[in-house]
């Protein structure tokens, strides 16, 4: 099969081609298609670009190694998002434990209090769009993990409720409910932006 033909194939056809004939080109096309959406999704969830790249690479490696575990009854996009989501959640938990531990250790060793830096919104820098984006990203990080994931999938990645339901393993009602709660938290945190 030529490269041109491979580019015309759907995600599901490409992964089957990779499964059956071990066509590396098919895998590379899938990587090309998904590297940016996954990077965006994981970055918005984790908030760290380097860690995000590691997770996306790990996701692709898992696709490469465990290609045979893909079942054609599922959409390829939901399968790869599920892998990335699981890895992102694991990394998020690991970072959370590490951060908690280091703050605790600091206070005990030095026998002094430790104040977290104040990263709240500052109106004087609101004109800079880059900083505005950072404030939104920071607010997103403060949304509860369970709500954040579905909000990102829905409002940033533009996935359908059904796809989100498949990726997260939640029923559609729960997905909708969590999305709205996440949005409510965000609106509360970003109210200063909306006043302008």
């Amino acid at each position: 099969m030529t490269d041109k033909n491979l580019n015309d194939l759907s995600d599901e056809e490409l992964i089957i081609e990779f499964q059956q004939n071990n066509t590396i080109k098919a895998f590379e096309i899938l990587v090309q298609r998904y590297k940016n959406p996954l990077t965006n999704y994981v970055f918005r969830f984790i908030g760290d670009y380097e860690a995000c790249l590691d997770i996306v690479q790990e996701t692709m490696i898992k696709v490469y190694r465990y290609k045979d575990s893909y079942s054609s009854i599922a959409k390829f996009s939901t399968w790869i998002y599920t892998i990335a989501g699981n890895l992102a959640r694991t990394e998020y938990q690991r970072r959370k434990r590490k951060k908690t531990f280091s703050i605790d250790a600091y206070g005990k060793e030095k026998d002094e209090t430790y104040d977290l830096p104040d990263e709240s919104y500052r109106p004087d820098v609101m004109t800079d769009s880059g900083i505005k984006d950072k404030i939104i990203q920071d607010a997103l990080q403060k949304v509860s993990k369970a709500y954040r994931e579905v909000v990102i999938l829905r409002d940033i990645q533009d996935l359908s409720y059904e796809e989100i339901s498949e990726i997260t393993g939640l029923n559609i009602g729960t997905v909708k409910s969590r999305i709205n709660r996440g949005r409510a938290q965000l609106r509360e945190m970003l109210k200063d932006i909306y006043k302008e």
Partner: protein
Amino acid sequence: MALNDEELRYKNVINTLKGLPKVNAPRNFETELMRRINSETFKEKQSFWERLFLPSRLIPSAALAVSAVVLFFILNNSNDSEDPLLMEPKIHEDAISADVIGEDDILVIYLPVNYNVQGERSEEVGYSNIAEFNNERTDTPLREGDANLYFPNNYYLINKEGLNFRQVNLTKEEQQRLIELKEHFRKLLEQQK
């Protein structure tokens, strides 16, 4: 996309999120990915049993097992040479019974290690009978009362080499019986003379 009621309620939030710039992977993403896939560190994970029987793991294990076997045999053989101070003496005993005294009386004499059972006297053995014993003294020191100890012709005494014997504590009855035996032997010897 048509917005439902909930989405209209949060329209500003949704627009804010949709307006965020897309974060993309770097240009060298694929190169780095393929390098990782092809690198030495990325290997197919082997199962526990496969890893267990890798030659690099088997060689030290086999060496350890061989060493253990060799040590076992060495230590096992060295057990034959026990500490002479701790080991019990080996007793070579030949029991000779005779009804020279009475119907139920049995005399047991412990003979030297080199004693010839068939009565042929070996060079090392001291005496073939009491007569010789009387002619030649034993090096074994005599204790008080030994003067009364006489033996019949058919029995042999323990010489110097025959110190390898068992010492038995006699009960009063046995001591009484021994005295009777001594008396009996003495009479027999007197009759011979």
